[in-house]
């Protein structure tokens, strides 16, 4: 986690490395100020997430909610705004989540209960098999393959 000052002390080159590490997109033609804002906003999003109280997942019987897109830069003009939510599914369960920049391992752990992801599931990104350390990008479509049902007789 970098403070605003930490970020300012870094070179543009170093900032771009951080963006890449976090999976932040759209930084290539930005000024230093804009890149620092991007990283700072991204980290703030993370901090909010960390401080949100977590429920005991074993006690959750069902989940109901509205999922909204998060914009990487809401101040941009219409057309240059980017949503960072991507579709993630496992079996019949599907929804959009703010997981850009996360690895498939992290996503699978975070959404295990919500999407009922099996320990035997393997990941597909845009229909192709990927390694668990793949970092999710904007517009990716993620599927954790649910094993086929066995019975029928």
């Amino acid at each position, binding site marked *: 986690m970098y403070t605003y000052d930490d970020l300012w002390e870094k070179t543009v080159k170093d900032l771009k490395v951080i963006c890449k590490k976090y999976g932040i997109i759209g930084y290539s033609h930005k000024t230093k100020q804009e890149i620092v804002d991007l990283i700072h906003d991204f980290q703030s999003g993370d901090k909010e997430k960390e401080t949100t109280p977590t429920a005991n997942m074993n006690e959750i019987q069902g989940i109901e909610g509205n999922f909204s897109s998060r914009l990487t830069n809401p101040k941009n003009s219409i057309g240059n705004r980017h949503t960072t939510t991507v579709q993630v599914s496992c*079996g*019949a369960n599907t929804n959009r989540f703010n997981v850009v920049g996360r690895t498939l391992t992290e996503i699978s752990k975070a959404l295990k209960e919500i999407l009922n992801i099996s320990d035997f599931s393997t990941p597909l990104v845009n*229909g192709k098999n990927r390694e668990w350390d793949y970092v999710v990008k904007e517009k990716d479509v993620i599927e954790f*393959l649910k094993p086929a*049902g066995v019975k029928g007789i």
Partner: protein
Amino acid sequence: MNIKIIGLGGIGSTLSLFLSRYVNYEKFDTKNITLIDGKRFEERKAERQEFSSLGNKALIKMSELKQRFFNIVYEAIPVFVTEDNISRIIEEGDVVFVGVDNHKTRKLISDYCGKLNDIILISGGNELTDGNVQLYVREGGKNLTPSLTDYHPEIDSPQDKLPTELSCEELLHSEPQLYFTNLSVALFMCIMFYNVIVNKKYDKSEVYFDLLTMSSDSKIRRPKN
């Protein structure tokens, strides 16, 4: 149209009725349905399976359906599908429905269909409250959809056995199942059949459903070979 239904348990016995009703009144040139299962109907499974008497499932179901749907020619093959007999059971141009209870048979059938030029294979399976249906279509020797094994390593390398490899004790063992889940699989298999035969649509080649969340989701997948 030559339809083969392999496995006449909770899914297949229901499916055979749904399918017969549709085929009987539609304008197909030929209407042949072959029922294949080596198992006997057991009274303890009456909560999920409807048979009028005890005995081999394929033979009983054939006699029941024959009395209801006069436009269809039925045949019963009272055996389990094995490597030795599969070439006599599945033929070019067939529409094959699979409602068996093991992945080894699914792989055997999928691999065999992969050697044929034209085939439509619809396979369904379930756990207690969820399940899935897969569609495998080959036309002119090419895969138009993934095989049953393309995206399912658990079917490609099955850890279970064919019914012919099971001991009597193993044959009697069965996990609890829910009639509604079997019904859902059978219904989705019919929907898949309708889409591929009537609407010529096969882009969504797999569908999952979950009774507890009351949801379903179909997947677009490309064949790997």
